[in-house]
């Protein structure tokens, strides 16, 4: 299963980026192959519609879960309709590597 995580940078040491639509990078983590891919967010500077555009981007990668600090209501209903689970981590002192470790506990 693929999981998207919003990241402030392009390494596992980067912090979770708490804003979904305008995060710096999306990490696509595959829980089976354990592969990680960092995708720069092309919507980072968007004044308008960054949330839905980012939602479509991660959905097109086939993720089943998205982990971020917060989601707008439009984004939320979009993901709901796509049956993609949202996970909110307010505790932003976890870095990407640590979040992936949590996912690997399965």
């Amino acid at each position, binding site marked *: 299963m693929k999981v998207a995580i919003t990241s402030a940078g392009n390494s596992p040491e980067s912090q979770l980026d708490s804003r979904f639509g305008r995060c710096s990078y999306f990490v696509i983590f595959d829980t089976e192959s354990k592969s990680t891919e960092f995708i720069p967010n092309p919507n980072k500077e968007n004044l308008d519609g960054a949330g839905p555009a980012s939602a479509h981007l991660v959905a097109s990668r086939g993720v089943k879960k998205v*982990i971020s600090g917060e989601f707008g*209501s439009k984004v*939320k209903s979009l993901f709901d309709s796509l049956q993609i689970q949202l*996970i*909110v981590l*307010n505790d932003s002192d976890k870095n990407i590597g640590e979040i992936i470790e*949590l996912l690997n506990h399965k």
Partner: protein
Amino acid sequence: MTNPPHFKGFQPIGLPEEKNPVVLHYEEYEAVRLSDFELYTQLEAAKEMGISRPTYTRIYESARRKIAMAFVKGKAIVFEGGKVYFDSEWYSCNACGCWFNHPAKEEDVKSCGLCNSPEIEQYQGNGQQNGAEDLCVCPQCGLEKAHTPGIPCKAEECPNCKCAMHRKGTPHHNGFRINKC
């Protein structure tokens, strides 16, 4: 709305604890977040919250006045309420502290979407869904009492340990960091 704030409020530095804090509703918090943090226009923010522009303006004005009141008078701010914004099913995980929702409604939720721990609780919004009792609970000893509408749980003191209480079944009661007694 997006998410409720992940902490319970603010307290001024260097003043004794206020007995009558300013109560900021979640929609007011959300209005300030959208206008002054995300820098949305009022029209965009109103759309985002699914309300009319005049309603948005009212909520936003009210939020700013409350914040100004707290700022000038040195009052604490306590976040409360706003059940309308939490009608989707959300769960909190006691193991990793995350929240997650559940888009596939036909399946039961048995474990955390992030760490897979079974230590999860459904988020009850304002505490009155599903006929659940509305209770304040002490984070220290677990004592419960009926919640008094209009009085923030935080303003209630546990008779045993003098802890500020929390609304039962909310993320605040589930061990967020600010919840130290």
